[in-house]
């Protein structure tokens, strides 16, 4: 049983869940009696279940073949999509919906997914029209301006 065979996504997910329960239960010990009752009532069984699940995943991983273990790992396409989700996230967080959204939509379509320039441009313009025209102008809902833009404006 090699370390690589054991340390796969399934085991990692079970481990993260266990760590969440452990850390939240530990933190709950610092609360007042009434405040910690429910978190501990849920957290302690959560830890026990986490240990059971982690043990089960490790045992199953040891039995799994190398091919099966590889199929559990994140593929290049998945890593790529994660990257795009975080580009959207940081773009919107930094520069807000009105400025960042059309740019990230264009970048995703044109650079990321190799759509035609026309489709990417129309999509970006449509996104801007909906966000700015519909939400900000028609509905008068102020959208998030972005942390960097707000900092620059201030």
């Amino acid at each position: 049983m090699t370390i690589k065979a054991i340390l796969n996504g399934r085991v990692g997910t079970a481990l993260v869940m266990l760590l969440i329960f452990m850390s939240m239960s530990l933190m709950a010990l610092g609360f007042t009696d009434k405040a910690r009752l429910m978190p501990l009532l849920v957290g302690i069984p959560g830890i026990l279940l986490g240990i059971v699940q982690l043990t089960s995943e490790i045992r199953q991983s040891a039995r799994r073949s190398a091919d099966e273990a590889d199929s559990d790992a994140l593929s290049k396409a998945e890593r790529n999509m994660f990257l795009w989700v975080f580009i959207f996230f940081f773009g919107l967080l930094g520069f807000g919906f009105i400025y960042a959204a059309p740019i990230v939509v264009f970048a995703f379509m044109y650079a990321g997914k190799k759509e035609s320039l026309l489709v990417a441009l129309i999509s970006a313009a449509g996104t801007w029209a909906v966000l700015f025209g519909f939400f900000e102008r028609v509905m008068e809902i102020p959208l998030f301006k972005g942390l960097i833009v707000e900092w620059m404006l201030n």
Partner: protein
Amino acid sequence: MDLSGIFDALLTIVGSPYHMSLLLLAVPIGMFFGAIPGLGGKLGVVLVIPFVFGMDATAGALFLIAMHAVVHTGGSVPSILFGVPGTGPDAATIVDGLPMTRKGEAGRALGAAFGASGFGGVIGGLFILALLPLLRPIVLQFSPAEFFLLALFGITLIAMLSGESLVKGLMVGFFGLMMAFVNLDPQTGTQRYTFDLLFLWDGIDIIAAVLGIFAIPEMIALGAAGGAMARVDKAAASHGRADVMRGIGDVFRHWRLSIRTSLIGAFIGMIPGLGGDAASWICYGHAVQSSKTPERFGKGAVEGVIAPETANNSKEGGSLLPTLFFAVPGSSGMAILLGAFVMLGIQPGPAIALTGMEIVWILIWGLMLANILAVMMFILVAPALGYLSYVRGNLLIPFVLILTFLGAFLAVRAWENMVLLAALGTIGYFLKKYDWPRPPFVIGLILGPIAEDSYHKAMSLWGPAFLLRPGALIMIGLIVLSIGFYVYQQVTNRRKSIWLSEDDH
């Protein structure tokens, strides 16, 4: 009961072109607000209040109630097609609606959702209409003790939604419960897991959490796999009007389930503070529990669409009762409606039973008519909506991602919600990839605060003796029955599979 008053109210609406045109205008507006994640019915009502302010009370209230009644009908569309819930209570529809879309049954799923919404809305209205005198004292009997046990009953449904792994299901449910404790403790004001961040003092926002756990993982998976949401060939799929009608027919084929979940939804709606999210998940759990083939759920069972959708709309009828008669809103949406009613000159409270029953009947009929109109309107557009499931992922993903981040931001107007969305989206993807059931998370998150708050209140009022109250004993009986039924089902299924494997040998 004043029957002539009830039917006069119906005539006041259908006999007036002005009132009917208001309904026809309000329904698409309500559905639109429901279909856009983050907007929702509350914002919709708030935005149109200035427009109805000059109307007479009946017309204004009718417009608002019609709009509010069909929000969840619209919310089912993005849930089914993209796995993005339009509103919080629509999250339960994703569990089976999205797999139906993947199987090429988007038309049928949409038909079932619209049919169930209309059915639930009408049954919810009729339920209140018929049982109004009987239900008032029952609702008044609901105390924190019954609230706590009702929430506990909902939490036991986690087991039913755990699919093949009970341990994984329980862990995800407990994770949802732990996330529900991120707030200022309601009893002591102690900061719990807030890290001194002000936006966490009110707890984790359900909309952002649901979008993170469901929508982001679906988009990552779609982008990684390529193609469209539907995984079957367009020619082999069902998205025409006949398939939409088949979905509507499913609601009547499963009429017993439709009626049961409508009634459960209406009853839960009547109880202030329990909320619509609880109604849809409890009804989904009931559908799984009462099915002879529970293993189909989560893989595209039409009953999994019918149950939450009937509950979503029937609870609106139920929540009218405490809103109008006790001035205690049954949900946050009803709280805004309550304010709007007061602005229009309608004074909710016990006195309305003596002086304002006409407006009560009008609102109940308006609610039912709006649901029927919504179904008719959706039948017209559903086939076109079904085609959206065949739009290439490359074209769909960026818009859904923008809409998801926008929904998270608009839910509480806090950019921190976008951080929460990204974090829960990452966890949600790994849960999805490694076959951890995600619905229990939402149940834990929704019912955790209700359970905790009512437990402390019940303990302060009666001590442990709260468990001996008559209502509490009934609820305990329901919980025991529910767990017993689950154990019985598991044992029977295991025996069946052993017999089948022995027969094979």
